[in-house]
């Protein structure tokens, strides 16, 4: 019996009995406040290293092990940590270590489910990068594994940790900008999204984001954050999606689109529109939440409110004054159809903290205090399943219905 089948067996017996896994229990130790939280990293590429940097800024955290199949990563990890970090080419060997409290999974998307589930089944808390799962089955199986294992799982939807995002979404949900019916999100860049590859044989390993076998392209790598934000604002996951995309600029052998335009449907006719292009960066990354009385612009550093210009309704002498108001043949709004060009009102809660830093600190706090994370598996599932079906829609050219999360059990 190899390691993976042993773990699968352990999980299956837990499902049947409802007990805590014996294997997991043996690895979980209680942490005193003075104890160092020992973290193993599966996939210390560019994003994985960014997470390591943030974790190392959190008091009492040690990076104790790293796993990758790309040899040069290990030297980068040692440089970042400042010591020789034990290195593994097989994640199962890393998970066999007895001294790890938490695992970071920052591997390519198509590997998330395999690595996250194995890490959870080893009894550790897991920080898994977004998008949570590549396929619908991946996301469903991660959800089930979290529920069955009872382990802490935090997904990399870090916007949920930033004060200005929290405050802005709270205001939107409190109807402070009226009824919110539209979220419009942009993530535009002007680069080819490629990483340099020293040896051509490593092209797919380094530039995995560009190939459909491993990646959901712009939707999973960028758009899943915006889907999560809209899910948060609307308090639900989308029910359907229509999308399109193309390769307009970078005809370099890539398979994923270099621009996408997607509309997600929510209940009561509410919509998220996500667009992303990689050939113009004027708009950058920004999210607009549109309500009937105002708008809210969110960026990675701040939030700004814009109130709708006060409507002006002229009354003609022939108007019939009704009990509840004025009836006119037409209405007039000062400013006409010209875009508003004045200043907005900055949201006071923007304190400038880096959302990923906050997310990593919060994860460590959850590990220490055995608390449930904010960006939990349900948050991850709702965004991931929507991104998966958006890509299906782009592929099929048809509107796709997004299945709800399976009931817990």
């Amino acid at each position, binding site marked *: 019996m190899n390691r993976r089948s042993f773990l699968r067996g352990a999980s299956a017996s837990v499902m049947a009995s409802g007990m805590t896994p014996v294997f997991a229990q043996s690895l979980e130790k209680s942490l005193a406040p003075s104890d160092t939280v020992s973290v193993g990293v599966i996939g210390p590429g560019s994003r994985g290293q*960014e997470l390591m*940097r*943030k974790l*190392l*800024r*959190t*008091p009492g955290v040690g990076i104790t092990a790293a796993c990758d199949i790309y040899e040069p990563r290990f030297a980068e990890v040692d440089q*970042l*940590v*400042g010591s020789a970090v034990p290195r593994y080419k097989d994640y199962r060997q890393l998970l066999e270590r007895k001294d790890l409290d938490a695992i970071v999974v920052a591997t390519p998307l198509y590997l998330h489910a395999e690595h996250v589930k194995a890490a959870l089944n080893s009894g550790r808390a897991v920080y898994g990068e977004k998008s949570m799962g590549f396929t619908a089955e991946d996301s469903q199986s991660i959800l089930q594994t979290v529920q069955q294992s009872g382990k802490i799982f935090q997904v990399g939807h870090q916007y949920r940790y930033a004060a200005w995002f929290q405050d802005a979404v709270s205001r939107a949900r409190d109807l402070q900008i009226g009824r919110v019916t539209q979220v419009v999100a942009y993530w535009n860049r002007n*680069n*080819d999204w*490629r*990483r*340099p590859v*020293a040896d051509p044989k490593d092209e797919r390993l380094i530039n995995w984001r560009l190939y459909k076998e491993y990646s959901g392209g712009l939707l999973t790598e960028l758009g899943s954050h915006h889907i999560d934000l809209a899910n948060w604002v609307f308090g639900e996951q989308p029910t359907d999606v229509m999308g399109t995309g193309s390769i307009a600029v970078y005809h*370099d052998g890539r398979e994923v689109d270099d621009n996408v335009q997607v509309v997600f449907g929510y209940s009561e006719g509410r919509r998220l529109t996500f667009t992303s292009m990689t050939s113009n960066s004027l708009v950058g990354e920004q999210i607009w939440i549109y309500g009937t009385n105002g708008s809210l612009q969110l960026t*990675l*550093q701040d939030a700004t409110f814009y109130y709708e210009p006060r409507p002006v309704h002229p009354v003609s002498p022939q108007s019939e004054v009704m009990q509840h108001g004025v009836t006119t043949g037409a209405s007039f709004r000062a400013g006409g159809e010209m875009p508003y060009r004045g200043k907005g009102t900055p949201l006071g809660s*923007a*304190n*400038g*903290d*880096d*959302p990923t*830093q906050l997310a990593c600190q919060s994860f460590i706090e959850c590990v220490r205090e055995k608390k449930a994370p904010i960006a939990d598996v349900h948050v991850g599932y709702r965004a991931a399943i929507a991104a998966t079906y958006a890509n299906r829609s782009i592929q099929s050219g048809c509107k796709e219905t997004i299945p709800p999360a399976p009931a817990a059990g």
Partner: protein
Amino acid sequence: MGTIFSIYLYAPSEQAARTLAEAAFDEVDRVDELLSNYRPSSELSRINREAAQGPVVTDRETFSFLATSLDWSARTGGAFDITVGRLMKAWGFFRASGHVPSEAELAETGRQVGWQKVILNPQQRSVRFNVNGVELDPGGIGKGYVVDRMVDLLRAQHVSAALISAGGSTIYAIGAPPGERGWKVQVPNPEDKQRPISTVLLRDTSLSTSACSEKFFVLEGHRYCHIMDPHTLRPIENMVQTTAIHPSATASDALSSSLFVLGPEASERLLNDMPQASALLLSGHTHVEHCTSIRWNDSLDGDVCHHTAAKIPRKEAP
């Protein structure tokens, strides 16, 4: 980093060159997230916000950058100082037009400036300010640090010929263009942009220039330079331009800033102990009056200070 970075590089194809350049620009963004004092989400901004309340644990790279900065302060007797953040604000050089602070403002600012007020703990990898109000400003060293990281990245990708420029004030040359001995770089003439002071060949080394010509304000006929003397808390008065060459862009950036504050004599003493460094200093009250070259033997123009005198018309005293 409020500056424009540019890269010239040789690569096997245009696409490879574009990918390499974009990777290097991504590195600028990454370091900006560490060190920008204009970006509230940067690690440096977090340290500025929190380090007066208690030790802030940071990552190894940020810690190392701060240690290097403080080391330059120690080597230069405080002429180089990244705690000048409040001082820059007091003089209106941070997101504002110039402003001459009152003596009371300066006295208050002085309590918040001083590299010894930054306490580093290598064991904890933490940073602490021992007084309230200290603000780190990486302006005198940050661009050089970014350039070094871009160089590391490009070298790791086997780039053998590239010229990287951070707004023209810090330049690094990797190798040389095919068939050349190095990259030709001109040191600007603060008084005549058409006639550079010196032209040097750079190869696997960096050149940084500090000058008042780009960032200053004039009030009642007096020109106030953005480079501050951390001891007097006032803008430097008798220096026009300093240029330093060093194999490390971080070092040349810090050096050009330091030499500007130190002046010619102290600069010569400092560079006595730095055999890898060379420098060219143009000093004077309102115009270039003196030229000092320290091991400046890379110039393609021969005796640089001799030529400098010819290139800069002498202002006759009234």
